[in-house]
């Protein structure tokens, strides 16, 4: 086994191990406060009413089949809902970016501690933008899953940005130049 193959396997093991560990912590400690932060900021920035499932009366939640951790888009003051995003479906990007940066070989601890908070701030901004774009598309009566901008922001704010930032770090600090 070549040294680089060994490094790839170590990277894969560390990344998956970290993901599992962080996901447990996240789901118990951070998920709901993070959802609240997303909803508070997007609600103040958007013309729509953005509500967390948990904030509905329990009777309404049961009657309408709402989920506690989903983010619903409505128009004030009525209870009519135009669409929703599953909270955890956005959150996984945060876990991904932490574990990818933390598991990348040949990256010193100082750099990890510098890049992880920076990446998290950018991810948060991307996720706020995702909800705002989603709310705008929902309220305009379009089908959100067919909208290019919604797909772009959801992909960027979950899977793509972590992969991109990891690619840049990998190119700069780890993977030797290909040519």
């Amino acid at each position, binding site marked *: 086994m070549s040294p680089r*193959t060994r490094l*790839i396997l170590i990277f894969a093991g560390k990344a998956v191990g970290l993901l599992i560990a962080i996901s447990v912590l*996240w789901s118990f400690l951070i998920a709901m406060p993070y959802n609240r932060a997303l909803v508070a900021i997007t609600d103040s920035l958007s013309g729509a009413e953005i509500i967390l499932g948990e904030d509905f009366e329990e009777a309404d939640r049961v009657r309408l089949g709402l989920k506690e*951790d989903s983010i619903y888009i409505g128009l004030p003051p009525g209870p009519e809902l135009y669409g929703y995003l599953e909270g955890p479906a956005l959150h996984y990007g945060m876990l*991904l970016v932490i574990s990818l940066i933390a598991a990348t070989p040949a990256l010193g601890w100082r750099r990890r501690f510098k890049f992880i908070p920076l990446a998290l701030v950018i991810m948060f901004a991307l996720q706020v933008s995702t909800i705002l774009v989603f709310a705008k598309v929902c309220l305009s009566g379009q089908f959100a899953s067919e909208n*290019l901008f919604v*797909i772009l922001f959801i*992909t960027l704010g979950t*899977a793509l940005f972590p992969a991109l930032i990891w690619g840049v770090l990998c190119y700069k600090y780890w993977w030797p130049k*290909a040519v």
Partner: protein
Amino acid sequence: MAKKHKTGAVPRPKGRGTVHKGQRQPLRAQFVASIEAIKLGLRRHRVAVKGGLIFGGGVLAFMLIHSRMVETEALAGFLTFTARATGAILNLFGASAQVDGTLISSPDYSMRIVTECTGLVPMAIVVCAVLAYPSTAKQKAIGAALGIVAIFVLNLVRTVSLFFIGGHFSTSFFNTAHFLIWQPVMIVVAIVLWLFWAEKLVRVTAH
């Protein structure tokens, strides 16, 4: 005769371009210098820049196709195929699963396969990364094909495991496994597949 310099010392250029201490470059000169620095950077990292542009273009193309594919027969067919394959594997483990279109149901649990359950995004990431990395057309074709097949197989493992988790554990545990573990794991696997392809196929072949 050339003037001798101390070992390691870089001779400073003299003449019009020299900036002395305390003297500020005019705005235009600063602008030109910045443009030159960007050009130099692009030239030095041209392979990476080209790769980044191909990756970005590929991902954008995927998203455009994705947005046009919703409610098409092609996507519906892929969803149904994923549901049938998941149902078949579940039945191998004795789950008595029945598949109706994209709905998989058993006495324990029911689950619908939607676009996000097909692994299309990790597939797009691995294919775009393979296309962007400097390699031959044959290597790219092999990498893309292997990446798609590997992600599809892993996705089946994911859907089967989620069906069992949904049937035997609480909703919150299912949500954690579904969104917080399996989704990022799929992206990590896409990245690792690309790394293995670049290491084992491209680098070894090049040597």
